[in-house]
C-alpha cells in the first residue's frame, strides 16, 4: 500500500489540462511551387477548450480542442495568362478552315495576393493519452549539494507527471465559404494593380471582360475541382501537411515539453522557521493513474 495518495477530480484534471494546453504554441512557415502557382504560409497556433472524458483503462480523451490560428498569413502567386486578342481569320478556305489569319496578341504576367487568414480554426478531434511520471534532475544542481542546498539555490529535483499521448487526431483546417469572395476580390485587386496607371478605364473593363469571371479564372488556373474553400483547406492541411505537423507537435509537446503537474523532491512538509531547516520528505515510486472518476497519484516515502 502506498504511503501517499493524491486524487484530482475530473474537474480539477480538466483545469490542469487547460493550463498545459494554454502554454502550447506552434509556429511554422513554408513555401512550395506547384507548377501553375506557388504558395507560402506563416502560422502561429494556440489551443483552447476541449471536452474531457476519463476512462477506466488508465487513459483519458480530450475532444473538440480548438486549434486557433492566431496568425495565418497566406500568399498565393500565379502566372496570369493575361488575355489575347485572338488571331482571326481574314480569308477562310473552302473547307471551313482559315487560309489567311491575322496574328493575335497576348498579354499577361505573374501576380501575387496576400491573404490574412488569421482566426481560422481546426480541432483536435480526439486525443487519447495516459499519464507518465518522470523524475527531473535539475542540470544546474551541483554534484556536492544536499537537497537543502538545491532548494536554497532554486535547483531542486522534480517529480513531473506528463501526458503520454496514445493518439492525436487533428481535423482539416476549417476554411469558411466566404474565402471565395475574399480571394476573388484579392485577385481582382492584384490584377488592377498590374495595370499601368496610364491605362484608360475602358481598356481595364475590356481586359476584365476578356478575363471573364475571376472566380472561373482562379478555379481554372489553380485546377480547383471542388470549392475554393475546400481547395485551400486541402492545400494547407494536406499538401503543406500542416495537420500532420500539428499532430506531431501536439503529441511531442504533451509528452515532453510541459508537465501536467510537478512538485519538488524531497517534498517540503514544513517550511523553515525559527532557525530550523525545513522538513522535507523524499518521494519514491511515484505512479499516476486514471479511472473514470479521477486522476490518482500514489507514492511512497523514501529513506
Amino acid at each position, binding site marked *: 500500500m502506498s504511503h501517499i495518495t493524491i486524487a484530482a477530480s475530473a474537474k480539477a484534471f480538466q483545469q490542469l489540462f487547460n493550463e498545459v494546453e494554454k502554454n502550447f504554441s506552434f509556429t511554422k512557415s513554408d513555401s512550395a511551387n506547384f507548377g501553375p502557382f506557388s504558395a507560402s504560409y506563416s502560422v502561429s497556433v494556440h489551443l483552447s477548450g476541449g471536452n474531457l472524458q476519463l476512462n477506466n483503462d488508465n487513459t483519458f480523451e480530450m475532444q473538440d480542442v480548438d486549434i486557433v490560428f492566431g496568425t495565418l498569413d497566406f500568399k498565393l502567386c500565379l502566372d496570369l495568362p*493575361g488575355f489575347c486578342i485572338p488571331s482571326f481569320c481574314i480569308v477562310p478556305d473552302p473547307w471551313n478552315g482559315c487560309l489567311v489569319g491575322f496574328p493575335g496578341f497576348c498579354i499577361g*504576367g505573374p501576380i501575387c495576393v496576400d491573404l490574412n487568414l488569421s482566426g481560422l480554426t481546426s480541432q483536435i478531434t480526439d486525443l487519447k493519452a495516459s499519464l507518465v511520471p518522470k523524475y527531473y534532475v535539475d542540470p544546474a544542481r551541483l554534484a556536492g549539494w544536499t537537497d537543502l542546498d538545491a532548494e536554497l539555490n532554486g535547483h531542486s529535483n522534480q517529480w513531473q507527471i506528463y501526458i503520454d499521448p496514445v493518439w492525436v487526431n487533428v481535423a482539416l483546417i476549417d476554411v469558411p465559404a466566404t474565402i471565395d469572395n475574399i480571394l476573388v476580390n484579392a485577385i481582382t485587386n492584384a490584377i488592377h494593380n498590374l495595370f499601368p496607371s496610364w491605362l484608360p478605364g475602358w481598356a481595364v473593363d475590356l481586359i476584365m471582360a476578356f478575363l471573364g469571371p475571376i472566380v472561373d479564372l482562379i478555379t481554372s488556373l489553380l485546377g480547383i475541382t471542388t470549392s475554393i474553400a475546400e481547395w485551400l483547406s486541402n492545400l494547407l492541411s494536406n499538401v503543406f501537411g500542416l495537420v500532420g505537423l500539428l499532430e506531431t507537435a501536439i503529441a511531442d509537446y504533451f509528452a515532453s515539453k510541459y508537465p501536467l503537474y510537478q512538485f519538488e523532491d524531497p517534498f517540503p512538509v514544513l517550511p523553515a522557521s525559527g532557525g530550523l531547516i525545513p522538513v522535507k520528505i523524499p518521494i519514491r515510486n511515484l505512479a499516476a493513474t486514471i479511472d473514470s472518476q479521477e486522476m490518482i497519484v500514489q507514492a511512497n516515502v523514501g529513506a
Partner: protein
Amino acid sequence: MKMTFDQNLFTQVGLDSGSLTMLGGVTHRFLEAGQYRGVVYRGGESIGKFYINVDKNSPVAQANIDLAAFDTSLPAPATTATGTICGCQGEGTKAETTFEVNPKGYAVFHVSAGAGGYAVRASKAAEDPKQQNQFDSRELNREDIFSAVVLRPGTYSVSNGLNTKAKGKITIGYPKIGKTAYRPPSPAKIVCSEGGFEPANVELQPGQAVLFQANAPSRITLELVKADDGPAGRPEHTRGGWKKAALPEQKRKKA
C-alpha cells in the same frame, strides 16, 4: 510586376490603312509569279527593303511580314536557340528580308509592336510599269484587304481618302463582363467600291475585327467621333493598393 503590353494598343485610337499600326494589317495577293522588291516606309521615310519570291511551286500559302521588324528604333526581337528569329540580316534591319509565297497565296503585312505608322510598297523588277504589278498599301485595290481591330468603344467615322463618296460609320460597343470570358465575334466585312462602303453602318464589339475589301482604290481611315466611356458612375481606374483581407469571425458549429 506590371503587365507587359504595348501602350500603343490602348492609346492609338484611329486607324489608317496607309499608316499601319498594331491594330491594322493589309493583305495582298501577288497574282503573277516572279520576284518582287518591297520597301517599308515609316511616314515618308524608307526604313527597309525585302524581297518576295512569288513561285507557283511554293507550298507557302501565307507570308506574314512584320513591318515593325524593319524599324531599327524598336527593341530587338526575341531570340531563339539558334539565334535571332530573323533569317537574313541586312543594313541593320532586324527583319527577314526574303519571303516566298504561292501566287494563290497571300502576303500579310502587319505590325507586331511599337507606334507603327508604316506603309509598304512592292513591285516586280521590270522596266514596263504595266509589268511591275505594283502594290502600295497607301492605295489598296484589286481585292486587297485592310483588316482593322478597334478596341476603344465609341462611334467612328469611316472614310476613303481616295473616294470622297465613301462615308460610313462604325460603332464599337462597351465591354461587359459576362458569365464566360469575352471573345470577340468573327470579323465583319465591308466592301469598298466606287459607290462607297457596303454596308456603310456597322456595329461591332470591342476587339472584333472588321475587314475592308478594296474593290476600288481605297485608303481607309477610321476616326473616333464620339467616345463611349461606359455606364455612368463606373469607378475610375485607380490602383487598389494593399488592403487587409481579413476573414470574418468564425462561429464554430455545435455538434
